[in-house]
């Protein structure tokens, strides 16, 4: 048996996490973008007459926003809504998806209603949500929840359906009971699908919360941006847009981190 052990190749190196570092091409592309923006405003190209320059935006941001408690509370409020809705969507969506995947009767009874509701865009829920929930806050969290809920449920359901039967068979042959198979085989097998649902869900959640804030709320980053428009202050609009972009990016990073903790075997 000795010589057979010699023939082992070295194990594959752990895959590095996605690196998003800028090289010189990336840097020049970003610099070029801001330069083009600056020039477009300087030469008053069509559509750019009311737009502030990047420099003006930066100055306004540092002067009026960077040290404003109001501004940072907008961040906090939007983040709370996003993560509360997102969290509830996981708490309810993951078990529901698992049930869909494992209980034929439950699926036959509940899936039709689920599929009937799924195509309704989250924002279409805004009016009804405001009527239904006692506070605006609750209705916005609910809409955010809707944004992530269907995605996560469907992904978990698909994840259960794509479990390789051999993975379950083997566990059964080895004498594992139903509970052990569920905990040690089914759940980990579905984790990658949960991760996909989370990545998609967090993106939708930000989309939804911003629109919902513009429509229904008096706080949050969406509201801040909208107020910039209403008060004809495009500088504020752009500060708001950039803030929302950063907030989304930050959330994606948090979710990525959680996912990497959930799947140590994929690193």
């Amino acid at each position, binding site marked *: *048996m000795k010589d057979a052990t010699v023939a082992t190749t070295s194990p594959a190196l752990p895959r590095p996490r996605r690196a998003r570092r800028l090289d010189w091409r990336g840097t020049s592309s970003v610099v070029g973008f801001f330069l083009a923006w600056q020039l477009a405003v300087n030469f008053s190209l069509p559509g750019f007459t009311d737009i502030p320059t990047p420099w003006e935006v930066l100055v306004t941001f540092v002067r009026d926003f960077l040290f404003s408690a109001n501004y940072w509370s907008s961040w906090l409020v939007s983040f709370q809504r996003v993560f509360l809705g997102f969290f509830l969507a996981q708490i309810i969506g993951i078990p529901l998806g698992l049930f869909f995947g494992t209980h034929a009767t439950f699926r036959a009874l509940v899936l039709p209603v689920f599929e009937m509701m799924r195509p309704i865009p989250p924002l279409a829920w805004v009016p009804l949500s405001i009527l239904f929930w006692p506070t605006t806050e609750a209705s916005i969290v609910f809409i955010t929840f809707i944004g992530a809920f269907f995605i996560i449920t469907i992904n978990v359901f698909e994840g259960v359906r794509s479990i390789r039967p051999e*993975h379950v068979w083997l*566990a059964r042959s080895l004498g594992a009971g139903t509970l052990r198979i569920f905990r040690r085989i089914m759940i980990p097998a579905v984790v990658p699908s949960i991760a996909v649902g989370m990545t998609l869900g967090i993106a939708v959640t930000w989309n939804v919360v911003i629109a919902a804030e513009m429509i229904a709320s008096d706080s949050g980053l969406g509201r801040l941006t909208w107020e910039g428009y209403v008060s004809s202050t495009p500088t504020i609009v752009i500060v708001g847009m950039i803030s929302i972009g950063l907030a989304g990016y930050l959330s994606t990073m948090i979710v990525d981190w959680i996912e990497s903790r959930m799947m140590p075997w994929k690193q």
Partner: protein
Amino acid sequence: MEAVAATVSETPGAISGHNLSKTYRQKGQEPQVALADLSFDFPAATLNVVMGTSGCGKSTLAKMLAGYAKPDEGNLTCDGKRITGPGPDRLMVFQETTLWPWMTVQENVVFGPLSRGGSRSEADAAAAELLRRFGLSDFRDHFPGQLSGGMMRRAEIAQALINSPSVMILDEPFRGLDVMTRELMQEYYVRLFEETRLSTVFITAELEEALFLADRIYIMSDAPGRIVKILDVDLPRPREISCLATRRYAELEQEALDALYAGREDLD
């Protein structure tokens, strides 16, 4: 056949099937007859190789032996007891790796004993011994995705052996490995078998592999699969790859080829 069975009657893992048939029916599709009236006796302590072309129903047979599929008709027993479902006495190595990717090699190997209420320390000790024997000691904390194809195969065999199965079922286990690794794995399994005499049902589509490994080859016809020829491979053990160059090997190969082609003509 009786002679073989008599000398090894204490060793478990004798499997026999009588008049087995299996038809797959799916809505909107023609029913597919995988097996029809298949009978065989696989003696214990023997390396039984089932050989046939792809789609002849050998995988269906393997699933039945492991208890994952039920025959529509017929009787299938292991050591005289009817096979009704999966069990740790009949463990299978599948065509594609079934190591659970989210468990380390170690966790994969001890899963069986722990599932049946075994003690952690005993399972760990047994796993350490097996992994050492299979040259995987340094990889016990690796995930399967970090292993080469040959290492995965060895980890799977360790994962099965720790449960002391009566019979190992291997369904084209070395398919998809590169030629070098494949040859090494064959030598590996031959030596394991020669040391332990573990009852084995080995399924393959490759004649060379069949002849190198087998005590006895069961050649199956195209679907619906039936055994058309039983070939006793009397090449001496312990076997080395060099036995492929002997006159006796060439004779056996010719005999097997004749049976395979005869099976073909029947169907034309």
